[in-house]
């Protein structure tokens, strides 16, 4: 069963990498991508841990949660991209004012 934990740890790693990119990069597109990478990490943890049933079929409840989560992530990403384009047209830059390095 150790490969289950390998996948789950990869998920933890993706989440942490995404969080690093989210904090470090001021560009909004990179931030949106970083949040998506974090979400993928969470999904990977959920799907991996669902395989611990000890039978052929995994636990369907986390799988259903991941499907729901993917759709919510897509919706949030689309809204975030639209907001980013709006920021770009209003200010001429795809970065937030308080994060710009002077």
């Amino acid at each position, binding site marked *: *069963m150790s490969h*289950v*934990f390998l996948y*789950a*740890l990869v998920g*933890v*790693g993706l*989440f*942490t990498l995404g*969080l*690093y990119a989210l*904090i*470090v990069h001021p560009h909004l597109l990179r931030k949106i991508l970083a949040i998506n990478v974090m979400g993928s990490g969470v999904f990977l*943890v959920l799907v991996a*841990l*669902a395989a*611990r*049933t*000890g*039978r052929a*079929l*995994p*636990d*369907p*409840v*986390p*799988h*259903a*949660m991941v*499907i*729901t989560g*993917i*759709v*919510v992530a*897509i*919706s*949030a990403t*689309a*809204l975030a*991209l*639209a*907001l980013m*384009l*709006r920021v770009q047209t209003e200010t001429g830059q795809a970065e937030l004012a308080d994060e710009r*390095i*002077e």
Partner: protein
Amino acid sequence: MTPMSMIENSRQQTLFRLLLILLLSALAAGLSYVVLSLPAQDPGLSEQVTAKLVHSGVSNPVTAVLQNFRGYDTLLEMGVLLLALVGVWSLGGVPQQRKSPPSDPVLDMLPRLLVPLLILVAGYLLWIGAYAPGGAFQAGAVLAAAGVLLLLADWRPDARASRLPLRIALVTGLGIFVAVGMVLILLGRRLLEYPPSFAGSLILLIEVAASLSIGITLAALFLGGRPEVEPRR
């Protein structure tokens, strides 16, 4: 900015990143510890799902969880999808060109060949979802891919279709879901508590409407704004 202060600035940034990496490593270590401390074997809720699967109307456990046991998750998620589209539309409109087929023959032919095939695949995924991997979201995603393909190939919906018919198609999924829930409440059951004998048909009805709405909503999100129809001259 003087060279001195620039060096100072970059040193500060390096320090900041080192501190950040340190903190995030601690976070990763903590999360890994939590994951590794979980028992190696845990059936979770799979036994309860298997025990009640016969009453759910479908034989694919994931579809049973999504559409029956935790149907309200899916209901709320349809709401989130619609809300995101309302948010995107509220930011502004996308000017709609007058409908004209693309000039490039490849761009003209490719959607003609692929879109019917994608619709067929979506229908198959929707139907197979009752007893194998598949279902409304997968079907909706394939429909959305067809829509994105059409948009990329410069096809735009007809001006008549992008007003009321588009809005009706967008809310059908959530509308039928809510309607089924309300009818069940009026019949003395709880929200989305399907009677086992009708569960299969109700789930199919909801899934058909949901996959249509999901597909069109995702394609509309890809368009990136409310389609604005220029007034007829």
